[in-house]
């Protein structure tokens, strides 16, 4: 933690960055919240521990934050992967953000370029964890009706607050499809169809892009397992198309590429 504060102070004093985006203690002890250190003094409030799991990269897309000038970003792995995907999607130019990764040993690694981030991530484990896999298999094994019942119950709790959208680093569209009303793709009210369509469209729009930072599920006030929808598509996209979003700046979005011999068994 001291290391982090020291580094943050140094960066701000040297003027390398205008703001350090990190974590500070939240209003309740369980939680840490995002914190924007603009000057050397404020760096004292920076913390880094188990509570710091939020993907801060999301803030980089906010105009207010962009206006602050070059930022140093305290990154959990999910955030690092986000930076890669931002690069792929033309949202972030190289060297406009300085990533700060904190190792388990507590030392702060400075990653000034995308290349460095890519290298750093290369050493990290990829793909879904065994637990995530098992959870998908569990639901897949349910009979059709039960699967539908499970999701009907889950989605029934959705209040269309779009916290998932706000928390997702890749939901950065200035206009979301839900805001389109000619035609009204997604019914406004939180009725069964609206909830189903919103959650399907959210998952599909993240298919082949989701870096599995977990922010969406964490943000959901109803605790709906929307992360499963991302996981099932991530598993499919990587199995079928070798998609590994978040690990490279190479542009190979599974849905805007193809192989003439992509395999499927369902098209007659």
């Amino acid at each position, binding site marked *: 933690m001291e290391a982090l504060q020291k580094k943050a102070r140094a960066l701000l004093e040297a003027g390398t960055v205008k703001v350090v985006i990190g974590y500070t203690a939240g209003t309740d002890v369980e939680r840490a919240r995002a914190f924007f250190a603009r000057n050397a003094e404020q760096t004292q409030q920076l913390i880094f521990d188990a509570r710091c799991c939020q993907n801060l990269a999301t803030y980089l897309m906010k105009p207010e934050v962009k206006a602050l000038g070059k930022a140093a970003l305290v990154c959990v792995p999910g955030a690092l992967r986000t930076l890669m995907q931002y690069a792929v999607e033309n949202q972030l130019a190289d060297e406009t953000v300085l990533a700060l990764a904190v190792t388990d040993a507590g030392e702060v690694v400075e990653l000034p370029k995308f290349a460095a981030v890519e290298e750093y991530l290369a050493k990290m484990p990829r793909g879904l964890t065994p637990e995530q896999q098992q959870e*998908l298999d569990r*639901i*897949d094994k*349910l009979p*059709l*009706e*039960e*699967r*539908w*019942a*499970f*999701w*009907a119950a889950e989605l029934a709790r959705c209040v269309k607050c779009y916290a998932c959208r706000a928390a997702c680093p890749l939901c950065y569209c200035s206009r979301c*499809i839900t805001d389109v*009303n*000619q*035609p*009204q*793709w997604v*019914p*406004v*009210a939180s*009725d*069964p*169809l609206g909830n*189903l*369509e919103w959650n*399907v*469209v959210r*998952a*599909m729009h993240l*298919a*082949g892009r989701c870096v599995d930072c977990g922010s969406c599920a964490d943000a959901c006030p109803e605790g709906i397992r929307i992360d*499963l*929808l991302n996981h*099932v*598509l991530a598993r*499919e*996209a990587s199995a*079928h*198309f070798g998609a590994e979003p978040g690990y490279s700046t190479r542009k190979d979005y*599974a*849905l*805007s*590429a*193809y*192989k*003439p011999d*992509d395999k*499927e068994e*369902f*098209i*007659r």
Partner: protein
Amino acid sequence: MAEFEPKVVAFVCNWCTYAGADLTGTSRIKYSPNVRMIRLPCTGRIDFMLLLQAFGQGADGVIVSGCHPGDCHYTAGNFHARRRWILFRRLIEFMGIDLRRVHFAWVSAAEGAKWAELVTNVVDEVRKLGPYQSFPKRLDGQPKPVEVA
């Protein structure tokens, strides 16, 4: 009471399947009248949201059909579409949507008979399944597309 007659919506590309269905007509091959065709330039144009819409509007089954791989009038539209369907289909399967009501096919401009057979089979299958009651419908009061001047 009369037997349930399913509503099936077919999203087809203009160059292969729509033309194939034209051939079904010119060859006077009969098939079930339960299908309503939506003509689009290419399967690549078919947004997965349209499929949900169709069900939301009360369709009991959906057909998506276009050119065979390699035959796309736009060279690659159907390849992109195929990837989209692979993922979309997996997702709705995972969510418990009934895949027996969602059918994908390649029907070329020369396959008039295949088109007739496809429609009849799908309609029969969906008829057996009955109306898709469990799928949520677009409620009245939801804004319908506005009347334009």
